[in-house]
């Protein structure tokens, strides 16, 4: 058969009770902390929220207890994180560590690395940045030029990473570096290193995005020396490791839910008896979301079964990010209002105006189809999955 199936996974018992528990926690947290609901996982950074989640056992959920994990299934984790996103909770601080850095260390890291770091991540107190892109290496990740060379007992790293979200407020980065010749495949001679952003002497320079937010950074490695035990996995195995990491980065529900709060706002604005054209527009979005969520759940089911569904994840992310944009566009057309940046319309507190929520999304949308791999790269992955090259 040509094409891809997304069979519904068998959900573990008790998952709906877990869902109810998460909803109750979120309602209380929102009431007490007053965070503003925004379903984009990158919207809001709150160390206190992350620690509260960690205390609940909702970070590192699938990891072994020996490393601070909770030995739950990937599907239970899916239910928790989709509830967090749908509620618009401030999950950014621990997100990368929970999603990809921790699992990478669990799979490839040394015993000492796992013991030192995973319990801190699971507690909600240890955050990670992604050290992949460089000034001359964006979509073409295999072309990275940051070099690590053996120096004394350790490694010396020279080069620059860029678009490094949260490097200024994270504890660690996992950096992809060239440690040997690229070979014919261009995928040889790459290795991943654990970088201590607080102690290793990496120069972190802010890059402000077009929305005026400081998420991105430039990270300069000028003769940064690190001990030998910072190598993650095997020297030269970096490409295999980083593609697995990218599959995790691309496979989650955050690639379909970034604008869910706007879909809820659209439904609210339309009321119980929308006129037919508006009902049609809303119906189109909810039908699309329904299909995407089914696909996203199926990907989680494959992860739980131990597979690495990179092509299926690419399909969901390509379609999901376009859906996210369509939600904002539909809202903009259906509820005519001028989007505003920030809160300059004077709205505040727990209920920012629709105009400022829409404004945040309009300014955020260009990044949704770039972060974690552009949609063009994803489509090439899908084509390869069809046997085409």
């Amino acid at each position, binding site marked *: 058969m040509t094409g891809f199936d997304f069979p519904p996974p068998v959900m573990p018992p008790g998952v709906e009770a877990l*869902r109810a528990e998460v909803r109750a926690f979120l309602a209380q947290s929102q009431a007490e902390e007053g965070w503003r609901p925004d379903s984009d996982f990158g919207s809001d950074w709150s160390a206190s929220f992350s620690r509260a989640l960690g205390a609940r056992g909702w970070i590192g959920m699938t990891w072994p207890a020996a490393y601070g994990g909770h030995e739950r299934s990937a599907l239970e984790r899916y239910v928790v994180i989709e509830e967090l996103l749908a509620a618009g909770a401030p999950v950014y601080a621990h997100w990368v560590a929970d999603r990809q850095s921790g699992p990478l260390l669990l799979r490839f890291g040394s015993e000492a690395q796992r013991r030192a770091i995973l319990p801190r991540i699971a507690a909600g107190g240890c955050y990670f940045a992604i050290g992949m892109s460089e000034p001359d290496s964006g979509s073409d990740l295999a072309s990275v030029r940051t070099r690590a060379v053996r120096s004394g007992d350790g490694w010396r790293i020279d080069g620059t990473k860029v678009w490094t979200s949260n490097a200024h407020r994270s504890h660690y980065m996992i950096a992809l570096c060239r440690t040997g010749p690229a070979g014919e495949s261009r995928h040889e001679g790459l290795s991943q290193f654990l970088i201590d952003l607080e102690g290793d002497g990496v120069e972190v320079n802010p890059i402000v995005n077009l929305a005026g937010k400081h998420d991105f950074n430039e990270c300069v490695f000028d003769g940064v020396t690190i001990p030998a035990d910072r190598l993650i996995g095997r020297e030269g195995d970096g490409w295999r490791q980083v593609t697995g990491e990218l599959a995790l980065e691309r496979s989650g529900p955050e690639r379909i839910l970034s604008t869910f709060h706007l879909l809820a706002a659209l439904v609210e604005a339309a009321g119980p008896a*929308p006129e037919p054209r508006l009902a049609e527009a809303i119906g189109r979005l909810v039908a699309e979301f329904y299909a995407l969520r089914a696909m996203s759940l199926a990907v989680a089911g494959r992860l739980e079964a131990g597979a690495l569904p990179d092509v299926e994840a690419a399909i969901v992310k390509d379609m999901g990010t376009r859906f996210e944009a369509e939600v904002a566009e539909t809202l903009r057309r259906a509820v005519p209002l001028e989007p505003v940046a920030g809160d300059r319309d004077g709205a505040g507190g727990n209920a920012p105006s629709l105009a400022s929520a829409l404004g945040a999304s309009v300014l955020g949308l260009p990044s949704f189809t770039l972060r974690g791999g552009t949609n063009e790269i994803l489509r090439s992955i899908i084509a390869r999955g069809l046997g085409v090259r």
Partner: protein
Amino acid sequence: MSDETLRLIEQTADDLFAAESGAARAALAKGEWPEGAWQAFAATGLAQAALPEDAGGAGLAAGLAVLRAAGRHAAPLPVAETMMATLLCHAAGMEAPPGPLALSTTAAGEDGDGSTVRRVPWARFASAVAVVGPEGTLTLRTPADVVEGANLAGEPRDDMALSGPPAAAGTLPPDTDGTLLMALARAAQLRGAMEQALAMTVRYASEREQFGRPLARFQAIQHHLAEIAGEAAASGAAVDAAAEARTPFAFAAAKARASQAAGTIARLAHQVHGAIGYTAEHDLHHWTKRLWAWRDECGNEAHWWRVLGTDAGQGGGAALWPMLVAAGTAGTDAAAAAGEGARP
């Protein structure tokens, strides 16, 4: 039912339709009923596949797997209609007549004005026509006063007068919606046709060379293939999820999503095939015409979008998320339509 049984049923259906469909399409094009293909299908017992296991079937998912195979091979037979009419008869406690069955449902203008039913699939060749009426009535009629019509793919779509008393009449249980069931069945066929359109397009792009290399080496073409694969996958996922969740919302979403994808896939499949795919001689049109026809049958995407969009607003914005989760979760809503939930 085990995954293994499900695969076996789909494989049986796939082999059967692969063997029979080409000649059957040629017969139908000449206005003849493809009796040989029908007999081969009837002999397998697959028309009963969607029935609950305790009624001799293998459940809704198995029925949808058969319909997927029928769509994949553009089988010109009333497979979906017979299967769903059989399922509805079972739900209403009626005996399903033998032979090919037609089924009239009420999604969008198909129910005519009360004295006729319109564009009934396969009515002229059916041993009986099952008519889903208002308020869950189900009647069986012998085809009479049929005015022949066809869909874009040349499949019979006939108007029929509802004159005289029906041969049998019954009532569907409240949780069994014949219109939604038939919409899901059509979505399953659409999904199969999409798979074949994708397979043909991938193969053609890999074999056809221009500018000294296969079309598939061009990134623009690769992206068309990726889009077809994504649209087909989304349709398939929506159908599979509906079979699992069995909520009215899920059934409607499956048909909406598949109908939406059908046009995109047909357009891109033709774009990649170029002029050869636009000929009567090339096989592609057997599938693209079905995509164009089936997307508008049993309610097109706009029809179901309006239904879903109105449903979605019932609880306001705050209720949207819990509603969507419940709609996608088995056992949260009194099993919309089908099989195992419906008692005879």
